[in-house]
């Protein structure tokens, strides 16, 4: 408990928690968007995140090998994000078309099994492609630290937190202020009625998959740059954690997924202070059970009636 009373260690842990929480939240948004519209859990979402990370890795490695990244570091990183988003969005759209659309009217268990199958397929495809080796992101920008007394905060952490908030704000504006966003909400509310009103439901569903995948891709590149290490299994744990975050916040609810992500990240970081670190996952999943007992629909599950 002595740690909890120390303001410096507390601040450091809050920043650690917000960094990983932001990443959980970005991935959780993909789960929640798809669930809101199709009522299915896209278990391949963690692999979409992994493919995004590899897309960014390929571009950054290429640019650092030909020396472009030393002269234009910021531009290279933007290129990596663009490539990752492109790859993941395409993958998301293809998955929807190939693995989920044929099963849209099947019993609810079928698309779930299909999703698990796709997830294992993508993991193994990437494993064969990379021969199971760990890949390492090149160091493009030097990591600077802001040191305040005992505290040392990485500028990467600040950028990740700000980047996540920026993307989430963008998503929020898109869903609540644009025409397509309105159509998405309408499809989530009632698919048949929406189609009677002249909304192209298939198009909206594809867009939803693309947006969810793009957010996961962004998270993938952030993870790559910050943690440097990627492999074909990297999507599994974050996928499960983000799913937990989405359920915590109330699955199908957009602000809920954001809140759930940050909540989970903070709980993990602060939990380490009161318990030995080996109980980190125990804290995260214990919280999930607790929240579900008290509020079965998640933290934000009933506050907002619209599901997207």
């Amino acid at each position: 408990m002595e740690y909890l009373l120390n303001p410096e260690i507390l601040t450091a842990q809050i920043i650690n928690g917000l960094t990983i929480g932001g990443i959980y939240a970005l991935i959780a948004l993909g789960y929640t968007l798809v669930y809101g519209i199709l009522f299915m859990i896209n278990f391949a979402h963690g692999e979409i995140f992994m493919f995004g990370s590899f897309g960014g890795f390929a571009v950054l490695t290429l640019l650092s090998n030909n020396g472009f990244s030393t002269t234009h570091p910021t531009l290279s990183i933007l290129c990596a994000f663009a490539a990752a988003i492109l790859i993941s969005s395409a993958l998301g759209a293809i998955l929807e078309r190939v693995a989920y659309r044929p099963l849209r009217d099947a019993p609810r268990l079928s698309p779930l099994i299909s999703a698990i199958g796709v997830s294992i397929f993508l993991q193994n495809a990437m494993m064969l492609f990379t021969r199971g080796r760990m890949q390492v992101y090149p160091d493009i920008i030097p990591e600077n630290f802001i040191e305040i007394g005992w505290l040392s905060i990485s500028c990467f952490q600040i950028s990740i937190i700000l980047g996540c908030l920026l993307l989430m704000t963008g998503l929020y504006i898109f869903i609540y202020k644009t025409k397509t966003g309105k159509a998405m909400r309408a499809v989530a509310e009632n698919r048949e009625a929406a189609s009677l009103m002249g909304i192209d439901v298939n198009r909206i569903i594809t867009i939803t998959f693309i947006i969810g995948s793009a957010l996961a891709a962004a998270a993938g590149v952030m993870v790559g740059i910050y943690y440097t290490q990627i492999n074909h299994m990297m999507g599994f744990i974050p996928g499960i954690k983000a799913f937990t975050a989405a359920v915590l916040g109330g699955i199908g609810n957009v602000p809920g997924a954001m809140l759930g992500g940050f909540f989970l990240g903070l709980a993990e970081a602060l939990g380490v202070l009161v318990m030995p670190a080996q109980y980190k996952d125990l804290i995260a999943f214990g919280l999930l059970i607790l929240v579900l007992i008290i509020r079965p629909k998640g933290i934000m599950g009933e506050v907002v009636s619209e599901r997207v």
Partner: protein
Amino acid sequence: MKNKYQWYCLLVIMSLFFIPLSGYADEWGFITIPNGKPIRIGLGSMLSGDYASMGIDIKNGAEMAVLEKKSILGHPVILQAEDDGCGGPTSVAIAEKMCNNPLLVGVVGYMCSGGSKPASDVHNKYKVLMISPSSTAMELTSRGIPVFFRTCWNDATQARCAADFVIKKKWKKIVVLHDKSDYGQSLAHDFTNHISKNGLKILATEGLTRGDKDFAPILTKIKFMRPELIYFGGMAAEGVLLARQMKRVGIRAYFMSDDGCYTAKDFIQAGGRATNGCYVTYAKKPDAQWVKRFESCYGPCQTFSPQAYDATNILLEAVTQVAKKQTDGSLIIGKKALRDKVAGIQYKGITGKIAFNSHGDRTGSVVVIYKVVEENGKRFFKQLPL
């Protein structure tokens, strides 16, 4: 007619008696390789998944030995590599598959202690030899399994080597981390034991999860204790992230880990400058000539390729000495004879002299300390003087 049939029966029964007499007896039975059939050497390691890099290194080492040997008494030798997923049920399934192959003479493996342990029970049932290049858990050799041997060291040897070094360096404030696996925990435990026997205290012991990427929360907590050394029992994937993130949260302590982190690609290259000055315990450098040969075929020499190469060669050597060629061109190999040959072997391998004690452990200490250094723009593991 009836008489002829009786004679025929008698002849068959007589010949049954004479087969073992004509060759030689073996209480565990024989492996018979028919004429023209290859001799199979099994290999069990993780060829896909999180630690596939290490598993592929082991496979490369074994493959090289098999390719160099080519054939024994006119029978070609081939390697049958199987992915045992580093443990548990898969290893048992693979062990059953290997042991039930009549052409298989023995297995190089398994890679992880968690896989070797259940697999060794299966191997003991069928009396099929196994020589692990990389399973270091203590209990593997303490359970009295006669068919288990290893060309690596055990955890206690390695942990003691690390602890002695720490005592010599007079580091007092020590934090121990492990990855909650059998392997990491047993190293952390042995290390702690040796340290406390010498009157030093461990500030804290914490576990982390394999496959996790974010260790900033644990390290922030550790930073508060102001340690001089962090000892980590685990693999390179997590070890390199710890070394990097230690620098990130601003811990100015030494980092020390085990053989799991002895990989140029996944530790030194992946860690960048953050790994400079890290200590790792690992075997003495293998024969330089061999390293050159290996690297020309498979790229940079990593982790357990040399141990796998030696394990395979010991198996091949024992088979060569024990196998008896029959008149019809087939080979007969006595299982007990093969086991006794390996148990008593005095082999000059590329990792040094190899002999086994009565438990199947390698005799003599083979573990030394390496430090990651940067000299003339190259970063590498440098062996510290003993």
